[in-house]
């Protein structure tokens, strides 16, 4: 039985009797950290524009797994899934063996329920689990670490190249009059020389009464290559917190493509530690914010060693009276000579009331480095709109086409062509809603 979960200000610990001692210690510490940090307030620089404090007063409940009726028809997942993927499905944070599909994986690869691997293979997890995500300073990470019940675990042994992506789907399903707490937790370990694509989707199903607070840790071993594609399509009035922490060993490559496609209040943190020499990291992202919604994206690229190369491109599309926030930090340590870092944030405002706050943050302690950043915010280009209309495209279609074209750059570079077109369809569908109501012939 789960302990009662009432007010998030007093987190209970999960009664998991099978927990190894090291994990119990970590969870105790995370709980203490959460109690100490409390809910962030707008007075904190990191949370200046994004206010989650109203959540602290809500009454939460633990979410259940999929009901039999849910399992009868899971067609709502179709827009997200690919034919040729390995699939892990977690329902309100709990692993669903019935819905998952991991049979085709090479036998040396581990992929499945975090809780189960915690019992079967704790030593493998102990080396990495919670070692990267910062529960000491990040309250929501501490909350997840202290109270998570299950999650996804992927381990790719040295030298293994996965040809098909591993797709981890987190489904959060709320209740009409209650607030369900969903705690997605992921650990991906790609050992030396391995190669893999991990897709992580966060999808809302059913009613909007839930908060999803996820933490994902990714370790990219020496000379390994990991592509991480993150899709967030929560219920339009649900709240989502996501924290991705990546650690890169020498000569590794990490590529992230993230798409924030729906959710009322979203905060995403991407934190990458370029720990080894000669590492390469690309963070590309798109956030779309509809009327009444709020999306906050924070990136933290930490160049700790020499000759690291990082590229960030984040684009925002903001509609109606919505707000987007982008805060991009690049830190270059004294040892990180010959660092080459670039960051760009471009935002498209679809209305005069739309708002974007963008802030680059550069902290450079090394000489002989290249660091660039740039930002631009504005409406759709009038001349382009006219050009399209002069070729017969209606105003709605022209706006739609140009908005999708703005997003296009963020999906370039996704390796799988089918995944790319999947994402592009999801973006087009989202953008279509933004332009709904525009007269088809501009009259």
């Amino acid at each position, binding site marked *: 039985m789960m302990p009662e979960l009432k007010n998030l200000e007093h987190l209970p610990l999960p009664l998991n009797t099978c927990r190894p001692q090291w994990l119990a210690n970590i969870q105790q510490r995370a709980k203490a950290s959460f109690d100490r940090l409390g809910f962030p307030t707008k007075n904190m620089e990191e949370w200046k524009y994004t206010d989650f404090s109203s959540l602290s007063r809500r009454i939460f409940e633990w979410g259940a797994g999929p009901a039999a009726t849910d399992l009868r028809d899971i067609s709502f997942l179709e827009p997200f899934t690919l034919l040729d993927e390995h699939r892990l499905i977690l329902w309100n944070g709990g692993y669903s063996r019935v819905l998952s599909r991991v049979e085709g994986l090479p036998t040396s690869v581990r992929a499945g329920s975090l809780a189960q691997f915690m019992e079967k293979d704790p030593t493998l997890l102990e080396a990495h689990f919670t070692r990267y995500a910062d529960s000491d300073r990040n309250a929501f990470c501490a909350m997840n670490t202290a109270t998570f019940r299950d999650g996804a675990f992927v381990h790719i042994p040295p030298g293994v190249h996965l040809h098909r992506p591993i797709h981890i789907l987190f489904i959060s399903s709320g209740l009409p009059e209650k607030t369900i707490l969903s705690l997605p937790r992921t650990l991906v370990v790609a050992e030396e020389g391995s190669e893999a694509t991990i897709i992580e989707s966060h999808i809302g199903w059913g009613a909007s009464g839930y908060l999803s607070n996820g933490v994902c840790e990714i370790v990219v071993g020496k000379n390994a290559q990991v592509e991480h594609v993150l899709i967030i399509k929560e219920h339009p009035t649900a709240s989502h917190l996501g924290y991705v922490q990546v650690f890169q060993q020498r000569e590794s490559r990490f590529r992230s493509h993230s798409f924030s496609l729906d959710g009322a209040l979203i905060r995403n943190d991407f934190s990458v530690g370029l720990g080894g020499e000669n590492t390469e990291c690309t963070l590309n992202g798109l956030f779309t914010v509809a009327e009444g919604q709020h999306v906050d994206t924070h990136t933290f690229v930490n160049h700790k060693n020499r000759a690291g190369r990082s590229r960030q491109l984040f684009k925002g599309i903001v509609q109606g009276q919505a707000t987007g926030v982008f805060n991009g930090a690049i830190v270059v340590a004294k040892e990180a000579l010959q660092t080459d870092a670039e960051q760009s944030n471009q935002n498209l405002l679809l209305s005069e009331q739309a708002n974007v706050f963008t802030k680059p943050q550069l902290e450079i302690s090394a000489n002989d480095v290249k660091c660039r950043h740039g930002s631009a915010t504005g409406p759709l*280009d*009038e*001349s*382009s709109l*006219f*050009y*399209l*209309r*002069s*070729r*017969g*495209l*209606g*105003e709605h*279609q*022209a706006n739609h*086409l*140009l908005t*999708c*074209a*703005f*997003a*296009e*750059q963020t999906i370039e570079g996704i390796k799988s062509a089918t995944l790319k077109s999947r994402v592009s369809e999801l973006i087009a569908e989202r953008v279509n809603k933004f332009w709904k109501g525009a007269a088809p*012939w*501009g*009259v």
Partner: protein
Amino acid sequence: MLTIRNLHATVDGKEIIKGLNLEVRAGEVHAIMGPNGSGKSTLAFVLAGKPGYEVTAGEIIYEGKDLLAMSPEQRSCEGIFVAFQYPIEIPGVANLYFLKAAINSIRKYRGFDELDAMELLDLVRQKAKAMNVEKGLLERSVNQGFSGGEKKRNEILQMAVLEPRLAILDETDSGLDIDALRSVANGINTLRSPNRSMILITHYQRLLGHVVPDQVHVLSQGRIIESGGRELAEELEKKGYAWAYEQRDRSVSGAAGVLQ
């Protein structure tokens, strides 16, 4: 096909077109020549319906309909095509996809079924070949990184695919070398037909050496000051626009003489 009567148009509150009259019948090719700032491009934008180009007086009747009451997309769907002097670059939209969206939007308006991907590809490939457009340009973003000549050829390709009834070509010849000029001119000649009218807006006579117009007009300070056959273009080329102004001044003073 097209009747322009006493057209006055302003841009940013400044009057550029000041009482322009023009009559173009089906199948005719008209050339409008004039120096920089005479209002040539403004006329093209007014015909295309560009926001910011305000018509303050006069009327434009196209195939019996009031053109000025139509949105830019409606004009296009009704068969008007303007090849722009500076075609816009649109990163993120593939040329082929753009053509597909345009042709299907127009077909839908006219009550035809939309073309599927294969039909469209066949059509575009065939037109691209006829217009001397490399296949590679179809996959690239619209006009992005195209050379001057490629942009102009791309406009002609769009015209060939969309099959307009009235085409207005705004300085399609400018900035082209001799070979590019010849290939663009060939494209235009291929599209000449008894049902299709064209207005060639040009600064120089050289395009008219390849595409022979039925009528030539001289535009100056927002008005047509001289009209004639193709020989007018040759005369202009030889004698310069100053000669046309003299002609105009002579006729104005002549008229004044009659009044006196």
